């Protein structure tokens, strides 16, 4: 683990560096993937479920990216994706024909290819870190979906690996690339609503995880590899289903449930607004503990984040300060109290946050320039840490004290065991 000072210094520099990245592309010719066809960035897409659709479409539409490989543990999915990639490239050619995208069951086959410069990792959470770390050690750049990790220790490893191996890693917290969220964060960060004391964030609830009876494993599905580093359970479709309303997201084994799902988005925005991208809260209190009505985490300055408090004025996040409020949601929805704040221009000396107008494009530009992207590994790690600590407190049904500088749970040895989880053999690499 590196020192806190080091990370903080680097993050601050990186954040400042990126502050103007909404600007047009700056690309020296030397930075394209040298082995990729036509000097495009050779790309591998790993995990071809619900979330990959948008990423795949974006990458296929770029003339500076060549998708060379797709990977999934579902045979049909990867074959369909391969055909879809080849069809898209064929349509772009005068000949109307194209072959050149390989489909793999094992991500290791993608990572070991020298002509692949970058990978998009859109698997369930428990595969994020193993694949991303292997890719970075192999010299690839990485786009990884949120939450960045399954455990807090994985996050430290990912962040250090990205920094040390010179990798560009971006986390898919795309709300950072939405104008309303940036504006909301700039208003909060620059003190336009005074000292922030309370924040409400709406995450919703998943159904409790269930014990499921065994079903036959479908033909062409590598279930053992889908489980990967997580404990073995008999196959049941409900366990592995990709479903925004539940599916695998319900199970603790594969993530931190809603904390890792919507929390990875909203807690991330709260971190950004409070200027805590290199740090985090100091205390986590689960819902129900000694009458606590809403899951809460508390920053050292006293700012409290309450999950699912209903009084959010119809928004995803509501920041309440001593002088006003900022409410923000997807769909470019921003409301303020006073109303005039919504159009408040920033003063010449105000902090201007990193401006990105398109999350995936920001990553590709970052690969080309080697400059910091809007959501690098350290930021993803700090946000995921909040998700996981909230989850650990919920599981243990007791509050946790956290030292964000040392990244340690204070005074609770058993809770500290949850900072990482053992990995199932043979998927133990990270």
């Amino acid at each position, binding site marked *: 683990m590196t020192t806190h000072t080091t990370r903080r210094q*680097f993050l601050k520099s990186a954040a*400042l560096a990126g502050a103007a990245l909404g600007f047009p592309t700056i690309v020296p010719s030397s930075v394209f993937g040298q082995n990729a066809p036509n000097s495009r960035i050779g790309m591998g897409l790993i995990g071809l479920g619900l979330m990959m659709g948008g990423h795949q479409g974006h990458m296929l539409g770029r003339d500076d990216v060549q998708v060379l490989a797709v990977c999934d543990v579902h045979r049909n999915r990867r074959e369909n994706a391969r055909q879809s990639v080849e069809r898209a490239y064929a349509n772009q050619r005068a000949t109307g024909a194209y072959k050149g995208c390989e489909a793999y069951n094992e991500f290791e086959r993608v990572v070991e290819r020298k002509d692949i410069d970058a990978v998009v990792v859109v698997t369930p959470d428990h595969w994020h870190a193993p694949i991303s770390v292997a890719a970075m050690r192999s010299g690839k750049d990485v786009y990884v979906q949120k939450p960045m990790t399954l455990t807090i220790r994985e996050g430290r490893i990912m962040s250090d690996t990205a920094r040390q*191996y010179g990798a560009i890693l971006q986390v898919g917290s795309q709300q950072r690339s939405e104008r309303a969220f940036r504006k909301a964060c700039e208003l909060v960060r620059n003190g336009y609503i005074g000292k922030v004391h309370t924040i409400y964030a709406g995450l919703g609830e998943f159904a409790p995880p269930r014990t499921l009876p065994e079903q036959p494993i479908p033909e062409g599905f590598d279930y053992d590899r889908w489980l990967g580093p997580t404990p073995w359970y008999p196959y049941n479709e409900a366990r592995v289903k990709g479903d925004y309303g539940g599916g695998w997201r319900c199970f603790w084994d594969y993530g931190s449930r809603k904390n890792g799902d919507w929390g990875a988005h909203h807690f991330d925005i709260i971190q950004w607004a409070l200027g805590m991208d290199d740090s985090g809260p100091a205390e986590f209190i689960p819902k129900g503990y000694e009458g606590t009505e809403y899951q809460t985490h508390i920053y050292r300055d006293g700012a409290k984040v309450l999950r699912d408090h209903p009084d959010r004025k119809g928004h995803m996040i509501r920041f309440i300060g001593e002088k006003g409020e900022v409410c923000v949601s997807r769909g470019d929805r921003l409301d303020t109290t006073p109303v005039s704040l919504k159009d408040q221009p920033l003063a010449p000396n105000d902090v201007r946050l990193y401006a990105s107008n398109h999350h995936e494009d920001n990553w590709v530009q970052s690969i080309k320039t080697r400059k910091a992207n809007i959501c690098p590994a350290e930021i993803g790690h700090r946000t995921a840490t909040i998700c996981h600590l909230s989850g650990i407190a919920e599981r243990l049904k007791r509050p946790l004290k956290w030292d964000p500088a040392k990244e340690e749970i204070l005074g609770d040895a058993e809770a500290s065991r949850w900072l990482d989880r053992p*990995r199932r053999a043979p998927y133990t690499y990270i």
Partner: protein
Amino acid sequence: MKRFLAFLALSSFAAVSFAADHNQAVTDLIPKLADADVAARSDAQMQLQQIASESSKPGHAAEREALGKVLAAKAADSTVPQPARVWIVRQLEYMGGAEAVSAITQLLNGNDAELRECARRALEKNSAPAASDSLRAALEKATDTAWRIGLVNALGWRGDTASVGLLAKQLDDAAVGSAAALALGRIADSASVQALWAASPRRASVGDGLVLAVNKLLAQGNTTAAKVIAQKVQGEAGSSALKAAALSVLAKADPAAAPQLISDALTGADAKVQQAALAAAVSLYGKDFTSKLAPLFPKLGAGAKIQLLALVDASAEPQVIAATADADESVRRAALESLGRIGSAASVPVLLAAATEDAKPGKSTAEAALRTIPGNAAAAVIEAAASQGEAKLRVAALNALGGRKQTSALPTLFHYTTDADSAVRKAAYSALRSMAADAEIEPLAKLVLTGKAEAAAALEAAAQRANDKPAAVKTLLALAGSDDKTLAALLEPLAVLGGDDALAAVVKLTKNADADTQDEAVRALGSWTDIAAARPLLDLASSPDAKPNQHLLALQGLMRLVKSVETEPTSRRADLAITAMKSARDDGEKKLVLSGLGAVPHRKTADAIKPFLTDAALKKEACAAGISLAEALVRTDRNNAKALATAVKDATTDQGIQRRVERVLSR
């Protein structure tokens, strides 16, 4: 001493009591943990998890140990059903201590693969040294590749120095070697490093293992050993990524050599290594980063220059300004971008000049930098630049003021709306449009009323932004006085502002003697800011005396409100659309209203659409509206949505709509 003995006695008694309680609780749960109905096991699992959590709270060491013993005994008891044992060992993974090692070791060496794996995981997390002994013994006799990898990793994560020899033997194994290399790196003692060296750091996983070892040694403060290893890795690293990692750790292990390492990397050609070097420099130099690295700038290639420009602070402004003249276009643009972040007043002329160079691609970068360049001094220079000099520079400055929403410049912007140069006038209006609000409503309205058409957009934007909308309406109505023609010129901002007074004034204009004024007033009602204009529009639409064009305008406006004012309850919007349908005079107007009905998800609109599904002249639009409505309604009213979708299905052969219907019906 007496107190201590008393405490011990009390603790022992408590432990015995805990053990008895826990034994009973766990015994009671076991049948449920192995219930033949798998789904029924969940509650018992959660109960056991809760017991484990409660018992392992801080300050409950005796209770934790007592439960650990109970669980360990149950885990090792072959009469306990396997599913229960699995769940028990999973609890031991997070709360078991020395008391559980022996029992878990039995499982580690047993025949049940699932229990064996659970045991391996539990031992990996168990802090008792004996857990390592068990894992080592298991690895010595293990033959299965996957199992060996698991054991190797468990020992690596535990940092078990006693297993180095055993792990070293695995290094040359094609399947297990990578795991062994990482495990040895995590152990990071001299023997493990020696073993890795013997296996050649050119092998990627061995190199990665050595990087892990350096990191661990650095964390322990052993920089001497870390430096030696890092130097060797750097000397032998094969890949770009490993070279970057080696540089990164070496710079930390050997701060004296770091400046040269960083310099060499930055003047080299490897972008990844440059990136790692800059990250290392940030750590090494802290706030002196810029002063240490800026002198290197002239020696760097384009890629390194671009990376460095993104990291320097304001002290590098002179070098960054110089870089805006770099021969490489990408560097030039990176420099302009950097000025937007770290520039001062001195950078403004450079950016203004670049923002006027239409032929060069850096124009938009310079414009963006002018919008963000920090500091009051820079803001003042931009404001001053708008007042004098070449017109194109003034235009660039005005655009920057607008982009920055530099409200301090608002009073002076009005001067430029009368400038002799049309481009300057246009830029001034554009800047006003970007930031005008309450205070600018009156002067802008006056400009509009004196025939300055360019002011209209700025006035509308100011109305949109106004905080005190009633006051703004009052201002506009006062300016108009009793003159309807003047009022007609202010219809658009009134529609944006809304409110009762504005509405009454606009409704009055719909009855003006001049037909064009009437039309404009109806249009203004159609673009009203809220649903309040629906009533007068509906009155117009229902009036048999309404002229055909105004009737159509009224329906168009009404449908816009019905579709867009989502703050109004859907029931109310549904009623409006249904009433509007009654006043539709021909099929064209009915099609228009159908589109409105289809946009308001409510059972009433669903019912209103159905009759048109069989109308030959309107069937196509009714089906389109019906399926859109069903898709929206299915989220809140599945039954009515499906009924409507079914009706649409029966009415159309359109394949696209049929597919959409199927999707609704499958929800």
